[in-house]
């Protein structure tokens, strides 16, 4: 079947099998390998992308479901002006090690901050509780999201 998906702002029309998973559409058909997969059961969260502005686990969404919809991936976070504040914060505060869970964490973190610009530590922990990191023990991820909140507020105040 033919589907047309707006990915990171650009319309992409692709011929796919109905069973193709969204994560494979992104990775194998569109070359957007920043979105990873780590399990088969929607438990690990390395595959999180935005679907119509909301984070979903793309290993458990069919590419066909995205026909006519918008998908945003980690590749869209940085702009010509540089890194998104959440990316910068992850770098400043060592919020990543092997980098495998990072794209999903960034996408969820960005979404959380868009909805809740000043989240508490507990709110951050709950927000990422469907995403597993095996390296960081989460502390620096939590700290990075907090720092991004502060960074965004500083930038917001300047704007």
């Amino acid at each position, binding site marked *: 079947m033919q589907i047309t998906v707006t990915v990171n702002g650009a319309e992409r029309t692709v011929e796919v*099998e109905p*069973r*193709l998973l969204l994560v*494979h559409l992104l*990775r*194998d058909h569109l070359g*957007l*390998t*920043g*979105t*990873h*997969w*780590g*399990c*088969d*059961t929607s*438990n*690990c969260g*390395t595959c999180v992308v935005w679907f119509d502005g909301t984070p979903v686990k793309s290993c458990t969404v069919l590419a066909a479901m995205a026909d006519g919809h918008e998908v945003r*991936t*980690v*590749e869209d*976070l*940085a702009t010509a002006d540089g*890194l998104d504040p959440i*990316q910068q914060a*992850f*770098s*400043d*505060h*060592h919020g*990543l*090690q*092997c*980098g*495998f*869970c*990072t*794209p999903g964490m*960034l996408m969820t973190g960005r979404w959380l901050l868009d909805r809740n610009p000043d989240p508490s*530590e507990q709110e*951050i*922990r*709950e927000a*990422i*509780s*469907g*995403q*597993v*990191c*095996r*390296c*960081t*023990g*989460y*502390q*620096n*991820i*939590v*700290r990075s999201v907090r720092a991004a909140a502060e960074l965004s507020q500083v930038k917001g105040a300047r704007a």
Partner: protein
Amino acid sequence: MSAGIDSITAAATTPRGYGPMRRKEDARFLRGKGHYLDDIRLPGMLHGAILRSPYAHAWITAIDTSAAEAHPKVHAVITGETLAGLGLAWMPTLSHDVQAVLATDKVRFQGQEVAFVVAEDRYAARDALGLIDVEYEPLTPVVDARKSLDPDAPLIRDDITGRTDNHIFDWEAGDAAATDEVFARADVVSSCDMVYPRTHPAPMETCGSIASMDPVTGKLTVYTTTQAPHAHRTVYALVAGLPEHKIQIISPDIGGGFGNKVGIYPGYVCAVVGSIVTGAPVKWVEDRSENLMSTSFARDYHMHGEIAATKDGTILGVRVKVLADHGAFNGTAQPSKMPAGLFHVFTGSYDLQAAHCAVTGVYTNKAPGGVAYACSFRITEAVYLIERLVDVLATDQGWDPAELRMNNLIRAEQFPYTTATGWEYDSGDYPQTLRLALQMVGYEELRREQAARRAAFERGEASELMGIGLSFFTEAVGAGPRKHMDILGLGMADGAELRVHPTGKAVLRLSCKSQGQGHETTFAQIVAEELGISPDDIEVVQGDTDQTPFGLGTYGSRSTPVSGAAAAVVARKVRERARIVAAAMLEVSPADLEWSKGSFHVKGDPSASKAMAEIAMAAHSDLELPEGVEGHLDATCVYNPPNLTYPCGGYVCVVDVDPGTGQVKVRRFVAVDDCGVRINPMVVEGQVHGGLADGIGMALMEVMAFDTDGNHLGASFMDYLLPTAVECPSWELGETVTPSPHHPIGAKGVGESATVGSPPAVVNAVLDAIGVRHADMPLTPAQVWRAMQGRPLRTDLAIG
């Protein structure tokens, strides 16, 4: 000595050496531009998938692949029979056993590899697996390790001529007679049976491989998720009889390893054969169930420990018997001469008069493996054993576990200290480290709170209990001295090569391979510290055997102790070459030069100086050099560690337990680590954080249990639970620094310290809360509740 709750943030500017520094590798990971195995697509690449056994133990009576072969997208179906024709049906393990690549006779664990399909895409490859018809004749499996040596236990390894039982090895360390003597005169003896159940490293990225055999040049290129690319190359050469100079192993970005990515798995060999058969590159990547079922489990030690002490609280000795479940093939990755790895550091951090352990390894119908999951070659098991035993002794005698530890720790002045099992601990100040941990957590105050809480609970005024758990660990990392340690005959020394370009920028080539540890940054910092140039000007190359010198890879926390030492040594070699060049430039004798970070100057005349960049250009120029001195500054070295390094740590965990449900909440976790000199303290903290989360996982939720048919009950992330951000507290870290006396920069390695040290602290805290002497991990709500009823579960078997 310092303490603080907040983690370290990168410095605003790049340090010219050690210090908190943003990681160079982050730039690509943050943008989704990492380059992991499954991101790689080679032209014409095909995809492999493995058909696995549903049975734990069964004869294969027939395999019909015709329907799969008829699938329009299938290029090849490979079975054990195909491989037998090539002499590849069996491969050597890292422990002098053999393992089936694809089963030819029978299957010996659920999930064992039976057939390999090569197809045009991964979906078709999966579909074709369903078209293969395998007939099995099920056999009774050996599931419970404790029954594996029963006279009537089914024989698992009938492939080995002359074998009549499931026994693999007996191994001892320490002095049995001296230990018995110590126990005979001890005032008090405590003993405990404990299981360190089978767990899995479960990195977020599963294992995989892309093999590409060039039929024209005969060159085999293997992209693979390996922590040890050079070891893989040599093993491929030995297994497949391929010339080693025609094999290139490329380990791309790795999404976590933790020991899961040390060994060579059947799937890798199948990908190679698939590429030879089809003439195209073949990719094989595990799904998560395959990862959990078949590759590199960890632990599975059934331990009986005894601890002897005087009535005034001096620990005299420890005696241990271990039954080690190695699964269906003995495939543990550890130094050849040590079938139980470094388990004989079970004497821990205490000054003992005698100790002895006897370890028996057995086969069961489970996946092969054993040494993985950041375990430092079985030190995880050893530390758990001793730290539980100390707590059991304290419980039995009504002693305070902190005081008991403090009174028995090896004292600073005793280093170097030779343990009762023969290890020479290099350095440490254990009492200082433990004291800092107790001070940071506010131990006395917590004990008062606990007493008040317990009293309130008994009056019905509080609904939760609290517990405080300690552990003190000594790690032994940086394997290892060549005379003592090898893997498959390969000595555990690491090479390093440093090139300094004419403009003073450098390239460091290393044999080890980061799986997230940040080598590109920290090893650049080591060279920066030695040469005084910016880490930003030093590129670290790793993971490609055609580009890097030989060495055994990254596991057992060995990168900093071995490759890190090599980096420092090779940088010092470069610096000495630079001295000669600088002397020629300044027209003085090399001996007249003094090094101040980044430049040589003439003694007594700081103005007559040459910076590294100037020296580098001159070294490549027409500058006349003394007779016999070659140009350029490049250098190589091989570092053979004289001893292991011995990081240590004192950990305190505080938990709240809901006795009505058995639920545990980790309230606080204080970790004071001494890993010697810290190159990038921010990265060190990150390593510790990750290991502490592992401890939460193992202590509270992670386990691979098996039912009586040998079915794996943790074969997905729905059943094999990893801790999330919600279960983890905000870690509180502290540090003490006793540099390793024999390491060039005094560093000790830290990658596994927290994974090793944290589980007993969590377990001790939970058991302290509920007033139970022992219950096996994981302390799930069910296990906590059952322990409180006096009927703890056997966690390695199905809950029935």
